[in-house]
């Protein structure tokens, strides 16, 4: 009984020590990342909203908001400063497009060069649905014995091995 109590106590003491060690190691690293969350939370939130709309050109499948690349950090700072100066979201997106092109926008504008991008999926879907409808209608018109596995179908003579 006494022995078990000692064992439990040492185990919990070890756990506390572990937790303490973890705290010691975790706190400084989060302290390094913290200053990005700037003085003004309202500007910060708007900055992140704009940054989510922008592609990071260094790591192209991330947004400026997600990326840790140096350029993304610089652009976040730029957005923050422009918002602080009273620029609108639209003006900031225009500013970025002027420098980096439509490619930075995760939602590019609709224009002749991007038309296929926008209507392409709908177009492909329309083609697929038309094809499906055509095939189904054709099969509907076929007589029942075509689907009978026992009767050789009409085209069998040019496909079958001789």
């Amino acid at each position, binding site marked *: 009984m006494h022995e078990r109590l000692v064992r439990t106590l040492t185990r919990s003491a070890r756990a506390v020590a572990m937790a303490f060690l973890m705290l010691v190691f975790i706190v400084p690293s989060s302290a390094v990342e913290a200053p990005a969350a700037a003085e003004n939370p309202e500007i910060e939130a708007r900055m992140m909203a704009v940054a989510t709309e922008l592609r990071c*050109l*260094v790591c*192209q499948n991330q947004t400026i908001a997600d990326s840790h690349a*140096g*350029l993304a950090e*610089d*652009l976040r700072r*730029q957005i923050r400063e422009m918002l602080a100066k009273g620029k609108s979201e639209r003006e900031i997106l225009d500013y970025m*497009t*002027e*420098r*980096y*092109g*439509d*490619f930075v926008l995760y939602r590019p504008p609709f224009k002749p060069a991007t038309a296929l991008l926008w209507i392409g999926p709908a177009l492909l879907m329309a083609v697929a649905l038309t094809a499906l409808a055509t095939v189904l209608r054709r099969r509907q018109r076929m007589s029942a014995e075509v689907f009978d596995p026992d009767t050789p179908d009409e085209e069998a003579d*040019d496909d079958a091995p001789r």
Partner: protein
Amino acid sequence: MKRFLLPLALFFVLVAFLATGLRLDPREVSSPLVDKPAPAFQATVLARPEFILRRDDLLGKVWLLNVWASWCSACRVEHPVLIDFARRGGVPIYGLNYKDKREDGLGWLRQFGNPYRDSLFDPDGRIGIDYGVYGVPETFVIDSKGVIRYKHIGPVTPDVLRDTIEPLLRKLNA
């Protein structure tokens, strides 16, 4: 036989798309700045912290703007090409020392040679943002009216210089 032609044709269309896609370089995003006036800047010069260079100081001549940094390994690759170009006495090359420390930049030039007439010092990358820089090194050709005529992303190779940049410079200087 005929019913196989359509899927086969579709297959080849797909292959053509994929083959083109494979050969495109997603890192080469065409810059909207080409044929637009070069963004204005006002920066100290790397070697002379007290001297300020502005874009308008460079009007009236054709020049190259080369973005470089001492931390950029690809810059080391293109550096001999620029040194050789400068030695042949083409148009002046101005550097943009991008997000670097002054002493690091100067040390790098001492070590590898200096092809630049001057290098603009841009420690926090603000001029870089104005020029849409995202992959150092980058090189701009700017004409005598201050308009950007060409932008090259990545190291300038002897091929790029011979086949693209030098013909353009001859045309601009003609």
